[in-house]
């Protein structure tokens, strides 16, 4: 006999165990899918999860990919912890990239130590400005931040389209939708010769440390936690809700904006239409897989980053369609949500009566 019983309170051990379970189930289901498609499941999983990071270059690519995911997810965890549903990180990333890219273009063919910090700061401000729109609309006009932030993603992409097609397009570029290449002074320094991993990773690590400190060592972190559990309690305790909402959105926007800066001043080196393969949306999966915990998010961003890399390797070496990478990302989220059931319920195996 199997019986499902409601838990008195959510289990803390299960809370951190379910992401691992979700990843495990994703591997099993993924192997099964490969098997059905006619591929050798273990070989396919090897090409998906081990081969891409087996050498120095692959490992640096993993870190390169995980950097924006981690940074955005850390920002999002400020929002999600406090019951603010910012779905528009992709838009904040794009707008941050636009502002910082604009500044970088201003300094075209110039040199100077002050250029890079200005460009980075511009990106953070851009992201914050863009995130402030849903935040202000939510606090003062009671609009739904999910809708507003999501819709603004498309607006930001149209602004970027307009700029790279029109006023900012490369004058020597035959009107192709891209800007000039940034000068070296506006680009993040590479950490190792021949690898693409750049100084942006320190921004992500700083975000991890700062967020851990804020979450667990400050009054603000406590307020966020209380608001996350119950808005009514937060109100009763006299917390200034509006201020907090705006603050978490600004933090989240700054992080997403910085992720955008990292892409355009790092591996891309210019603005064009496709600066992000939807990092802002994928980071939502990362944030939840990491249980909104800074350390969890580091691991989650690495796991999700590898689904991007693995999909390419699997196609190159085994001709497995590349879009299976997205299937894996979807499965991770699905299994995570499904196994969260175990947080609130437990399964009891009861012995049959003899």
């Amino acid at each position, binding site marked *: 006999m199997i019986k499902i019983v409601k838990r008195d309170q959510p289990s803390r051990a299960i809370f951190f165990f379910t992401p691992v379970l979700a990843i495990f189930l994703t591997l099993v289901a993924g192997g099964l899918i490969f098997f059905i498609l006619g591929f050798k499941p273990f070989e396919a999983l090897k090409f998906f999860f081990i081969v891409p990071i087996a050498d120095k270059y692959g490992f640096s690519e993993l870190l390169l990919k995980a950097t924006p995911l981690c940074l955005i997810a850390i920002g999002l965890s400020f929002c999600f912890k406090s019951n603010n549903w910012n779905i528009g990180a992709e838009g904040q990333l794009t707008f941050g990239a636009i502002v910082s890219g604009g500044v970088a273009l201003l300094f075209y063919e110039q040199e100077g130590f002050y250029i890079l910090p200005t460009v980075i700061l511009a990106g953070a401000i851009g992201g914050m400005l863009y995130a402030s729109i849903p935040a202000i609309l939510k606090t003062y006009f009671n609009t739904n931040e999910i809708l507003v932030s999501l819709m603004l993603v498309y607006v930001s992409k149209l602004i970027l389209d307009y700029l790279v097609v*029109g006023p900012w397009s490369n004058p020597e570029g035959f*009107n192709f939708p891209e800007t000039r290449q940034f000068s070296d002074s506006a680009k993040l320094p590479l950490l190792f010769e021949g690898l693409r991993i750049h100084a942006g990773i320190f921004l992500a690590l700083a975000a991890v440390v700062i967020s851990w400190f804020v979450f667990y060592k400050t009054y603000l972190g406590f307020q966020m936690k209380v608001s996350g559990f119950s808005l009514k309690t937060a109100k009763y305790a006299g917390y200034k809700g509006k201020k907090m909402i705006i603050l978490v959105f600004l933090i989240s926007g700054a992080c997403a904006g910085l992720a955008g800066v990292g892409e355009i001043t790092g591996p891309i*080196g210019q603005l064009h239409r496709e600066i*992000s393969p939807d990092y802002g949306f994928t980071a939502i999966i990362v944030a939840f897989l990491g249980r909104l915990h800074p350390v969890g998010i580091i691991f989650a961003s690495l796991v999700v980053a590898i689904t991007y890399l693995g999909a*390419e390797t699997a196609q190159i070496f085994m001709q497995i369609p590349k*879009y299976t990478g997205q299937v894996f990302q979807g499965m991770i989220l699905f299994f995570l949500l499904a196994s969260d059931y175990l947080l609130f319920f437990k399964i009891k195996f009861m012995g049959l009566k003899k």
Partner: protein
Amino acid sequence: MHKFLIRSFVSSLVLLFTLTVAAVAKDVKAAFVYIGPTGDHGWTYQHDVGRKAVEAAGFKTTYVEGVPESADAERVLRQLANSGHDVIFTTSFGYMNPTNKVAKEFPNVKFEHATGYKREHPNVSTYAARFYEGRTILGTIAGTMTKSNVIGYVASFPIPEVIRGINSFTLAAQKVNPNIKTKIVWAFTWYDPGKEAEAAKALIDQGADVIAQHTDSTAIVQMAEKAGVYAFGQASDMDKFAPKAVLTSVENNWGPYYVDRVKAVANGTWSQKDTWHGIGDGMVVISDLDSQMPADLRSKVKKLQADLASGKVHSFTGPIYDQKGNLMVAEGKTADDGMLAGMMTYVKGVEGDIPK
């Protein structure tokens, strides 16, 4: 002595022969990087048809689809270069900078970039097709078949390639019907069925009864089928998606070029080139002409096709005027490749302005 000379001559011949055979038989592997899914029935689909031709010619191929033009392109290129591929075809404009960047690090691997203009290293070639020749044919058909004298044109991005197509199309249509107007809607996408269908709808609502497209999905021909107007397939033969609407298609035929280049790599004769082939070289192919077209139009089109192929007719033969009436190409002259490559003005008869 005499014998020795003959013997050494024969043996060196044999050696030379063996070496040549060995060089030809060398396992050359070609890789293809695609922007979309191989099942898009447009741009990527046709490149994959070309890849299959390379396979059929006895070479091993690899492809990676859906590679975004973001930071990811460089990694995919490097992985392919690192895993024993001798020639890599990058089939979207946005791969231009990554292609040149990776080419620098892998001087022994050949890179072929479609539609770009940068060849920064001796191992980078570029190639593109003279699609505007196909559009001369489409314009001729559209100018003849329209009753409303309004022709719709869904365009992607205001780059010379697209402007050239619009101009070539309009000039040909005017030649058979001086009263036509070409209305443009800019979709600002290469592939977005939703947006493309909306653009087609807007043009049909404005009275267009023939729709041409410079975007890649089948949404436009399907919309035309629903509205009962004519359309043309893009990149691949789209007749089966809209049998009534599609009069013909301009197909991108990359196979012969790909086979040629991979063979050149195998023979060791590959060298940097900028290729721009049209109907004559078979890179641009006109699909079957629909039987709804009158017989005399069909024979006219066949003749035009042959004349474009032989070079007897050029898509841009003067006199050509721009929208303001300024002379672009004088009577009896044809536009040279330099002018075509940088074409950023509409010819007379196109409505609206180029978005800036």
